């Protein structure tokens, strides 16, 4: 089968491999961090072809000395900065609590966003509250920033009797239209063309609302990603397409998604879409990039593609142990630090925050989450009976229930009687 011409060297298959595996000492000194304003902020009306270099640079605002610097500095006031910090800390507190709840067997599944909070919180703050968000599963920070009731998130996680989604969805697959937050899918990247379609619809109606979509760097390999980029470019859709490059897709490092040869931000160039690469652990840079992109979209300057360069500090979900595939303590060595920590230090430097305030807020948020958790658990936890009525299973398949689902529903009810005896009552 193989045909080897003697005068030609044999071909070789390259299989990307991360630099560090369990047992190795992670060392990120080869990651180069460009200086602030290595590329200055261009005008929002810039033509994509003129700003290619942004896809290979790194938008930064918070410097190593924790000062906010350069042309991208969004110049937020202290109140906004504190709110941003609080939203990120709330997200982290929520994640910690819910992770524990899963470990305690109160639900089936959970996913933390630790280390990546800026990519949800700062982006949500830079958008208008009615701009439509199409998140992946790791953007809980958007909901918390937009003031979605925490107890509702928990009810969903517990699939309990008050779960707005009737226990149908895996934990964390929220849906919140009144907070302009699209229903989360378990299927990666499907939200990408949907966000573009939503933006196209908004534009076709002369609306003023734009849309924004998030996915992981691993998910960029799906065909949906490409369809979305193509449609966004062709119709100049008012959409912001974002990739959270947290270096890992379950156990696969970013090289398996194509990260060895170029940046993820570069993907946008091929479509003629303005593309930014941003320090995803710098909440001010994230805010500034989103703001720039949103302004472009709002002024009919079209779509923007953004890569947030960040790091997934924890496991992929409660179902995996990162110690099995990557070096320990990678996050601690991550050259771009931790977004919460960086914003905290910046605020302290500004004289607008202190270690004491920080510690107090930490405790306050932990308490808040704990208190809310109790409230949610009063509505039930997974697998302990306080779920939605069984018949709800047959609702919402269609607007009106067709005969075959009615029959199946009756059958299910009869089965419950048989199972639990005549005392059983459909709730």
């Amino acid at each position: 089968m193989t045909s080897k011409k003697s005068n030609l060297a044999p071909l070789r298959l390259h299989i990307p491999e991360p630099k560090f595996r369990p047992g190795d000492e992670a060392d990120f000194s080869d990651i180069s961090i460009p200086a602030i304003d290595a590329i200055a902020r261009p005008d929002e009306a810039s033509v994509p072809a003129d700003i290619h270099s942004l896809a290979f640079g790194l938008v930064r605002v918070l410097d190593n000395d924790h000062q906010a610097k350069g042309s991208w500095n969004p110049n937020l006031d202290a109140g906004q900065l504190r709110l941003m910090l609080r939203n990120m800390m709330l997200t982290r507190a929520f994640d910690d609590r819910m992770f524990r709840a899963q470990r305690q067997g109160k639900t089936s599944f959970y996913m933390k966003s630790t280390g990546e909070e800026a990519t949800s919180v700062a982006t949500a703050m830079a958008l208008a509250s009615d701009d439509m968000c199409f998140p992946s599963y790791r953007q809980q920070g958007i909901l918390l920033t937009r003031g979605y009731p925490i107890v509702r998130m928990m009810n969903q996680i517990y699939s309990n009797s008050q779960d707005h989604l009737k226990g149908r969805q895996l934990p964390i697959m929220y849906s919140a239209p009144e907070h302009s937050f699209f229903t989360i899918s378990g299927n990666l990247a499907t939200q990408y063309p949907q966000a573009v379609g939503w933006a196209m619809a908004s534009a076709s109606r002369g609306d003023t609302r734009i849309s924004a979509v998030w996915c992981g760097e691993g998910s960029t390999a799906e065909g949906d990603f490409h369809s979305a980029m193509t449609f966004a470019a062709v119709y100049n859709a008012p959409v912001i397409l974002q990739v959270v490059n947290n270096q890992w897709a379950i156990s696969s490092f970013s090289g398996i998604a194509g990260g060895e040869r170029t940046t993820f931000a570069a993907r946008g160039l091929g479509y003629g879409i303005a593309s930014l690469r941003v320090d995803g652990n710098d909440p001010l840079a994230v805010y500034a990039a989103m703001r720039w992109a949103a302004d472009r979209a709002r002024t009919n300057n079209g779509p923007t593609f953004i890569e947030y360069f960040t790091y997934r500090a924890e496991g992929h979900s409660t179902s995996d142990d990162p110690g099995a595939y990557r070096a320990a303590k990678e996050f601690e060595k991550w050259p771009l630090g931790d977004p919460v920590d960086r914003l905290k230090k910046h605020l302290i430097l500004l004289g607008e925050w202190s270690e004491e305030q920080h510690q107090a807020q930490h405790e306050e948020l932990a308490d808040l989450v704990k208190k809310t958790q109790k409230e949610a658990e009063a509505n039930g936890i997974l697998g302990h009976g306080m779920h939605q009525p069984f018949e709800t299973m047959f609702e919402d398949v269609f607007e009106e229930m067709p005969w075959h689902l009615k029959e199946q529903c009756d059958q299910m009810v009869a089965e419950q009687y048989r199972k639990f005896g005549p005392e059983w009552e459909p709730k």
Partner: protein
Amino acid sequence: MGSTKTMNMIEAINSALDIMLERDPDVVLMGEDIGYFGGVFRATAGLQAKHGKTRVFDTPISECGIIGAGVGMAAYGLRPVPEIQFADYIYPGLDQLVSEAARLRYRSAGDFICPMTVRSPFGGGIFGGQTHSQSPESLFTHVCGIKTVVPSNPHDAKGLLIAAIEDNDPVIFFEPKRIYNGPFSGYYDRPVEPWSKHAASDVPEGYYRIELGKAGIVREGEALTILTYGTMVHVVQTVVAELRVDAEIVDLRTLLPLDVDTIEESAKKTGRCLVVHEATRTSGFGAELAALVQERCFYHLEAPVERVTGFDTPYPHSLEWAYFPGPVRIAGAIEKIMKD
């Protein structure tokens, strides 16, 4: 509804789209070559010029993008009506249809819905070979959350399409391309009869609906029940006339939700049942129909429910008339059922 006009299937579909674009600013058409050109089968001819480029437009060749963007548009509040140029090319968009369009309402408990109608020409009989002839309808009937509609004539096509567009759930609307321009007797060697000679080409010019989920009885009869849809409705009619058998012919029109009452009543009445479709046999929609009929009418049946279908091979280009479930295959099955 007002006055009527003689229309073929394409004209009836075009009329339905035109009326819905007119009535409802949320209706948007998109697809490959459907804009300026009016579609490879001309179903959208003239509609871009009339309703504007942002209502009727060409798309990139990405079925995933077409359906995915459609889901997003529907979530915004529009009623997109994407066209997939051939049903054979729907697979790249299947994930967006089955994992997204069909699931939106359920997974969000009604927060987001997907009132999208995906139109697609399907079926064979035009020497289209294996990639322009497929009938994948049964796949969609297995996916909960999506409705599947197949019209068999201009009148139904228009009324069903309007109902589909107005439906608040995703609908896949398969158009039997072999009968776009005239009903098909099943005799490929006879001249094509135009729709104008068929009663169902008398189509109201205005708005009307044919309810989804309701079958039509094309011919009443006592001897056996024939369940069919699309192109095969006409082939079956030819054979029934030739054999002079008193068959009741049910044109299902909507495969899901199915009109089980009409089916059950007819099968119980006649005690014999034949299912006819063009799709491949194994796990085709005929399997579901046969299973259902024997489940619900077992004690009324005097013979097994028979299936006449395409063979379990790809649609072969040059041998398509040996492949097609034509008059001979149908006649054979009817004779067998009546003998049993």
